[in-house]
């Protein structure tokens, strides 16, 4: 069994304002992701200006927050929010869903693409490799915050999380950091090095995230208000199944050239 490191959730103070690791890591991932996208956008095959990247990030941020919150309300605790509708706006109290956030991000890509005359899937291809940075650091923040831990386990690397009671548990946040953060980043960067059909990088992100999340959920403590929802599957797995299937279908469609824009000068655009 490994000891829980007891990292103070508050990283430091700026005057009287406590700066939490969670917020700090989110800001760090946002800055790193933005700088990376600006650098990537300069490549001739992408042709994105710095202003366009910043404009896109605005759309993506709104989409991720609105979608993430809507997804949590709809899929994780709808009876509560029907009884307390004003609490839907209390984003600061926690309660975001990745799957809802992804839908919000895709809608953001669609809205931005419409405005800029770019295809939704090509916008998704451009941003997808940067997403694991935020996802991975978000999971580290979950670990520091002593939340979203795993199920009871007696594996040698199980940890007693203070909020989880006296039993040792799977450090599922670390598994998620390694899979949805590190491994997914490596896969998308390596895959995106060569020119790929339009929509392929974004679709691969959807498939891989869905698969990794589905697997890690077997070690994660289900949300307490839900428990398991379908046999031994929890809501995270229920929502990851269509991601895997739809992602595979979109990948197939991408390789058939279904997302290529007629007359496009760049049939394959790479990530780096």
């Amino acid at each position, binding site marked *: 069994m490994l000891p829980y490191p007891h990292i103070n959730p508050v990283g430091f103070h700026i005057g009287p304002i406590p700066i939490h690791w969670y917020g700090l890591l989110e800001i760090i991932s946002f800055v790193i992701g933005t700088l990376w996208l600006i650098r990537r956008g300069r490549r001739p095959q992408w*042709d994105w200006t710095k202003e366009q990247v910043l404009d896109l990030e605005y759309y993506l941020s709104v989409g991720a927050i609105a979608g993430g919150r809507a997804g949590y309300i709809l899929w994780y605790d709808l009876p509560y929010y029907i009884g307390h509708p004003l609490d839907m706006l209390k984003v600061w109290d926690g309660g975001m869903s990745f799957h809802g956030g992804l839908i919000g991000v895709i809608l953001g890509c669609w809205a931005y693409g419409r405005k800029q005359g770019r295809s939704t899937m090509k916008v998704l291809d451009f941003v997808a490799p940067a997403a694991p940075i935020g996802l991975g650091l978000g999971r580290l923040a979950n670990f520091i915050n002593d939340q979203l831990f795993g199920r009871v386990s007696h594996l040698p690397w199980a940890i007693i999380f203070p909020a989880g*009671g006296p039993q040792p548990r799977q450090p599922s946040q670390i598994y998620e950091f390694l899979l949805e953060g590190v491994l997914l980043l490596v896969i998308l960067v390596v895959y995106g090095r060569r020119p790929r059909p339009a929509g392929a990088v974004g679709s691969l992100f959807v498939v891989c995230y869905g698969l990794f999340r589905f697997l890690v959920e077997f070690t994660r403590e289900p949300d307490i*208000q839900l428990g*398991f929802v379908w046999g*031994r599957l929890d809501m995270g797995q*229920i929502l990851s199944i*269509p991601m895997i299937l739809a992602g595979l279908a979109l990948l197939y469609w991408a390789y058939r050239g279904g997302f290529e824009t007629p007359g496009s000068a*760049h049939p394959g655009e790479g990530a780096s």
Partner: protein
Amino acid sequence: MRPAAHMPANAAPPPRRMGRFPLAIIILTTLYGLWAAVLSYRVVVKQQAVRHHLELALRTQPRHPFASARQARRYAREWLRRLEARYPQNPCGAGPAYRLASGRRRLPACTVVLIPQGHHIAIQAYDTQGQAMDTVFEGLNPPPRHL
């Protein structure tokens, strides 16, 4: 509001209309999402009831060991009657909300089981899918009074 970005001189041509294939995926995903929301709603309502049943059992669980195993079993039967008087109905369907441990391999969903173990009485709850719940974690996080 952020300033609008400029259109690049060599921007890609406008995207063509969405094909049937992506449209079918969007429709199927939307229907699946709605199904998941309905499923979640139903599960949360039932799970909330099980959690209340479990909370009552945990709150009234005797803390000290009994003088004998027989006394523990007798207390468990009396305790079961008191619990059943408060919550007689299993939220997942027919049957009681509480049971005494039996030799059955599989217990119905949404059931709280009282298990006489020597001089003690343990508790194990089963969720809406009949999966064993983390009783310790539930004890640390009692359910809200109302949904």
